[in-house]
């Protein structure tokens, strides 16, 4: 297995749109790396270039600039595709096939023989909660059922790398949890997962590293826990202290907020003791002192706001 499952360097892609065939940039100078064995999240608002990036990875569109590799093979070739699983956004499949026939067709492309295909199909349909022997054709499936089928077909070849575009789309909360569990299980098996998602809580729960893209550019990337702790703040949680406590603590740090009975104070590391002294003077009770971690949602919104200005 290669060190990086995916490596993109300075990828650019634009499309011609409208009557005047004006060029619209979809991805510009985008670089990213996905280490083998990790769960990677590609985040960004609508139109940020996430789907184009995935299409470039899969050789469905061709970049105008840049280079890259997929499982150690040059981008654009087919050599890595037998070790790759893909779940497209809003999965579209041949509607006239049943789930079993669909898996049979896709499995044949990987050279799986009939016996192993039958066994693998049964296992995967069980895994995603679709019963084998269901004679409904795929065009009769609900969005959630199609999504489950999509996940099953993406895992047919026991891939080293799974690329998933919005894997939880259309699923109820139970289904979303099941997908998260599947992804974590795949990681435990040593698989690499490339995830494009709008479900920030899902990404925050399971991803090791992320890249945030906006307007076709990579605007923030790195290890997720490092990014969320990047501001170097400490959160002090206090109780009591009277009505003017928040105002007086504001002299130590401007980031004071109330949450029910508690006062939350976010301070830089060097001012922690000063803040604790002030709280003691105010007669406040200390609840906890923890390194402050932003939520991914906060980080995402802040990054998009900064880079859209």
């Amino acid at each position, binding site marked *: 297995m290669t060190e990086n499952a995916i490596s993109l360097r300075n990828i650019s892609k634009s499309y011609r749109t409208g009557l005047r065939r004006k060029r619209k940039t979809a991805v510009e100078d985008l670089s990213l790396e996905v280490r083998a064995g990790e769960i990677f999240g590609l985040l960004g608002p609508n139109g940020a270039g996430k789907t184009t990036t995935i299409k470039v990875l899969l050789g*469905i569109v061709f970049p105008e600039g840049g280079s890259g590799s997929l499982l150690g093979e040059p981008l654009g070739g087919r050599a890595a595709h037998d070790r790759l699983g893909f779940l*497209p956004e809003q999965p579209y499949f*041949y509607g006239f096939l049943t789930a079993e026939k669909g898996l049979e067709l896709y499995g044949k492309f990987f050279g799986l023989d009939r016996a192993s295909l039958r066994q693998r199909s049964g296992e995967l349909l069980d895994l995603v909660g679709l019963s084998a022997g269901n004679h409904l054709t795929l065009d009769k499936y609900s969005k959630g059922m199609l999504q489950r089928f999509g996940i099953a077909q993406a895992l047919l070849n026991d891939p080293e790398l799974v690329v998933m575009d919005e894997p939880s789309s259309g699923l109820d909360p139970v289904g979303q949890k099941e997908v998260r569990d599947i992804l974590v299980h795949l990681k435990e098996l040593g698989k690499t997962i490339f995830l494009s998602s709008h479900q920030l809580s899902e990404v925050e729960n399971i991803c090791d590293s992320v890249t945030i893209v906006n307007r076709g550019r990579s605007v923030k990337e790195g290890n997720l826990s490092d990014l969320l702790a990047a501001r170097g703040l400490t959160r002090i949680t206090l109780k009591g202290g009277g009505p003017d406590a928040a105002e007086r603590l504001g002299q130590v740090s401007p980031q004071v907020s109330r949450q029910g009975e508690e006062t939350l104070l976010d301070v830089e590391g060097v001012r922690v003791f000063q803040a604790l002294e002030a709280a003691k003077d105010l007669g406040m009770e200390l609840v906890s002192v923890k390194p402050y971690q932003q939520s991914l949602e906060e980080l995402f919104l802040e990054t998009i706001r900064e880079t859209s200005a």
Partner: protein
Amino acid sequence: MRNIAYIAINVVKDAARRKIFYVVFLFGLAVVALSPLLPTFEMGARAQFLRDVSLSLTALFGVVLAVILSVGQIPGEIDRRTIYNVLSKPVSRLQYMAGKYLGVIAALAGILAVMGLEVLVLIYVRLGVFTPVVFQGVFAVFLESAVIAAFCLALSTFATVPVNVFATVLFYLVCHVKTGFLHEKLVEGATGFVRVFSWSLYYVIPNLENFNVSLQVGYGGGVPATQMLRITAYALMFIAIFLIIGYLVFRRRDL
């Protein structure tokens, strides 16, 4: 090679469930079956006339089916986005396109074989004559339909469905009049642009009249083996040319 077969089988399965396909197919069978009732036929009822008319109608429906089957294969999959999932597997664009084409002509072969059988039974029932020579005509119709399907599939790699249908119908008509109108323009000594244009068209586009053996089949004498071989090679050449052009466009197309 196996991937080409799997894609082709999928095309045949998809074709088998399309309602428009059955409507045209049943209509074709009905017209062939009713052709003896045509007034012109009643006036001069002869086995050769029945063979000729039935074969001409089979040819017409063969071409219509070739267009219906091939025009939406690639654009339809791009619109429905089913193509992404196939091309993310270890399937090359060459395999994909070859599979699509083989699927179309396999479906065509099946339909035309049934229509040929219908003509054979019809003639036997009406006139008590067993004329397997009809299948030579059906094979020629198949070759012509296969050329049209290759043209249509190649065009579908970059043209929209309405443009493709219009262009294919135009192509079909031009390819049938070329021996008449275009040849006259050349022989009659046209000059300048008209001559260059006529000359180019005459030698570049296929002559679909080569596949019209309905008169020979009609007379019951059959088509010489050398002629069948010649038109088979002629069809294969144009099929290869169209598919190569289509593939060259498709292989680097953003989907």
